[in-house]
């Protein structure tokens, strides 16, 4: 079905190959997960399947590729579009038309199908992906998950036998991601569609897949095989697998259900560690909000919220989409002005000061760090912030030397790089630098793990911990339960514009069916959230 024989690929002008001597075979009807660090060439490999590489990207291919009996390097992407459907990462940037139905028909129009045939196929894929009720909607009114389903429908309209997806859920919240993955699993099992998906959230996809490909840095060292084989050979694995490996569970459990067979035999309560002492707070919260109300027209987004964060504390703000988390974050720095309520930031009354003044005290990292970056180099990017705050012109000492910050972010060799050329994780750190270079005493982050791979996520976690230890107050809006479990000192749960729960992570995440991390699912009632929590008790000798 899909066969790569000694495939190497060089982008034009590049000496180093993006793929080096890759060989594998995927039989018809399989569901394949491809993973590996970013920059390993996953996207390049996927684009070889439909001829985007090299026809769109340019460059040089060596070796043999066979997809459905065709060689995409010889055929054009137009020919391949009938055999391979392709779905991209960003649901916003892959739509041509403005409405669901027209978008689905776009590929059919390009293939010059007669109109009657088009109608049949459009109806078919709308049904297949449960989009019938949305058919007349404008695309920008859809949620992220719905949009990705439209993208899948649009890719399937030509009835390809293969569906390729490049990190289709990395921009989605967990609920939407779940919808998309479930749709894929159904297409695979009901229609026998061959699915190849690149994904960072291993824990969500692994249960569905038959084959796994792991691509290491620089397109080298491809591992191919069953998920169990591949997972046992790679480093960054889901918490369940990590724990199972440490505890020597065989065969390796891939789902919580499989894991429970082992965890049931363990009695966590017996030797439970004494609960960690509550975090010692300074007397005064650094940011304090009382009775904050925000109304947009008819909708009340925040209904009298009380919220505070102390120096040296990480608070995870969680809840469904539209619960008011992002709005709360924006009110704290003055981007949204509340109709009622009082907000104090450091010594400042937020209502009396503009965003710029407040943001000298508080770093705010927006959801899309790209919106921040426009300078020619990383160093210049940071200078712009200093200049904005008037810190560069007065000749006084800088709050922090850029070199120190570069080293801390692991960007020492990137000071002169064009920020937009960096990887997602690096871009995010440049943006973090741009909001924190004022030596702000607090940091607010909106969905910081969106689009990050496991390594970048680890780097971010370390960074947050070290800032916390320096006494910086951190608020984290996130859907990522594993991140919250790893770094949060306190979790605040919001729903419909209200704070509904506020307490230590073990109490709130451990008992929530929706927000529990894998380890909490595995040992309900234990209060354990991370692999480290469990190991501390179960294997004190290796936990250290």
């Amino acid at each position, binding site marked *: 079905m899909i066969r790569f*024989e*000694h495939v190497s690929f060089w982008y*034009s002008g590049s000496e180093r190959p993006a793929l080096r001597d890759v060989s594998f075979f995927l039989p018809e009807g399989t569901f394949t997960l491809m993973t590996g660090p970013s920059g390993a060439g996953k996207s390049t490999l996927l684009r070889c399947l439909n001829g985007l590489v*090299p*026809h*769109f*990207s*340019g*460059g*040089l*291919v*060596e*070796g*043999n590729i066979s997809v459905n009996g065709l*060689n995409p*390097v*010889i055929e054009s992407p137009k020919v391949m579009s009938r055999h391979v459907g392709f779905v991209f990462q960003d649901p916003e940037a892959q739509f041509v038309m403005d409405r669901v139905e027209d978008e689905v028909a776009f590929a059919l129009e390009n293939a010059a199908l007669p109109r009657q045939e088009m109608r049949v196929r459009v109806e078919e894929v709308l049904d297949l992906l449960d989009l019938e009720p949305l058919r007349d909607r404008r695309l920008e009114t859809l949620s992220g998950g719905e949009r990705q389903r439209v993208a899948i429908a649009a890719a399937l309209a030509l009835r390809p036998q293969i569906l390729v997806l490049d990190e289709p859920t990395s921009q989605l919240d967990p609920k939407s991601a779940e919808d998309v993955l479930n749709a894929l699993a159904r297409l695979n099992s009901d229609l026998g569609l061959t699915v190849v998906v690149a994904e960072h959230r291993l824990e969500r996809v692994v249960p569905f897949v038959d084959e796994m490909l792991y691509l290491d840095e620089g397109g080298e060292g491809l591992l191919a095989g069953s998920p169990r084989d591949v997972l046992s050979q790679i480093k960054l694995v889901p918490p369940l697998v990590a724990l199972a490996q440490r505890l020597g569970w065989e065969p390796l459990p891939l789902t919580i259900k499989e894991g429970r067979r082992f965890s049931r035999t363990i009695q966590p309560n017996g030797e439970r560690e004494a609960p960690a002492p509550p975090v010692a707070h300074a007397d005064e919260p650094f940011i304090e909000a009382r009775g904050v109300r925000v109304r947009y027209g008819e909708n009340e987004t925040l209904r009298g919220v009380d919220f505070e964060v102390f120096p040296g504390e990480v608070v995870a703000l969680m809840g469904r989409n539209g619960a008011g988390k992002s709005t709360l974050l924006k009110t704290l720095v003055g981007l949204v002005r509340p109709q009622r309520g009082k907000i104090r930031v450091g010594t400042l009354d937020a209502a009396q000061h503009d965003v710029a003044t407040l943001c000298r005290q508080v770093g705010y990292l927006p959801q899309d760090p790209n919106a921040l970056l*426009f300078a*020619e180099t990383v160093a210049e990017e940071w200078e712009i912030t200093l200049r904005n705050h008037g810190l560069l012109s007065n000749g006084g000492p800088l709050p922090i030397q850029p070199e120190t910050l570069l080293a801390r972010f692991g960007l020492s060799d990137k000071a002169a790089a*064009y920020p937009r050329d960096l990887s997602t994780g690096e871009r995010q750190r440049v943006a973090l630098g741009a909001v924190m270079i004022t030596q702000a005493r607090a940091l607010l982050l909106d969905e910081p793990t969106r689009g990050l791979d496991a390594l970048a996520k680890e780097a971010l976690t370390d960074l947050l911990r070290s800032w916390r230890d320096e006494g910086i107050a951190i608020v984290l809006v996130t859907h990522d339960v594993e991140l919250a479990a790893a770094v949060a000192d306190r979790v605040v749960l919001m729903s419909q514009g209200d704070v509904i729960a506020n307490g230590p992570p073990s109490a709130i995440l451990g008992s929530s069916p929706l927000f529990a991390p894998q380890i909490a699912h595995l040992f309900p009632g234990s209060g354990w959230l991370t692999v480290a929590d469990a190991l501390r008790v179960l294997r004190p000798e290796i936990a250290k």
Partner: protein
Amino acid sequence: MRDRLLSVAIYGLTTLIGLVAFLYPFFIPVVRGGAAMQGAHAADAPYFLTLLVVICFVVLLLEVQGQAVNAKLVALLGILVSINSLLRFVEIAIPGPGGVSPIFFLIIVTGYVYGGRFGFLMGAMTLIVSALITGGLGPWLPYQMMTAGWVGLTAPLCQPLARWLRAENTGREVAVLVLFGVVWGFLYGAIMNVWFWPLVTGPADQYWEPGVSLGEILRRYYAFYVATSFVWDVFGAVGNALLIAVFGLPTLRALRRFQRRFAFDYRPYRPSAA
């Protein structure tokens, strides 16, 4: 060779027809030696003129589009036009000094960097898309599309000067473009006016009366121009100049950076040695 000749012929002829269309009120009395037109035909003139401009525009569009329009070009144009149309939106929403239009800045710079064809499409498409989103469809649309297209089409004319100054990515390069923007600020106003003129002053026979000389017509156009357009065009030219001066350099850099990504070289398939 043949392709080039055809291209030159098509660009030349459309420009010529455009010129005649824009200038005919001036030379009619000269060639006709003062013979008045029949009232009936004279009244059709503006209508007829619009038809000619539409034909010229269609032909130019065909010629520009006919040369390998791939997905990259379509996507790039679509998104840049979308951004530029929103700038037009700003123009309508924030009533600044009349005549200042932020759209020409991007038309000029993209035409300059990505070539005249791109510039032509950028100009023409910006006008039609912004007319669609602001509900500003009107009889003047073909003229605006054509003229804005010309702005982009002619932008690469700055290239030799910039090359001669060895000015890539410097203030001097921006200065060249500022000059170009000022020229088009006035030219655009003057061209749109000549078209508008017959409509405002009525059927052509009013100024094709026997005995009306070219000088007299020029005098009247001049009056019309000063009264209706001159001040606006000054604002337009200054607006173009300011925008190019302020946004020119970073925009040039960004467009050039992406130029490499949008163009590519694709080396042919080499079967496996293995």
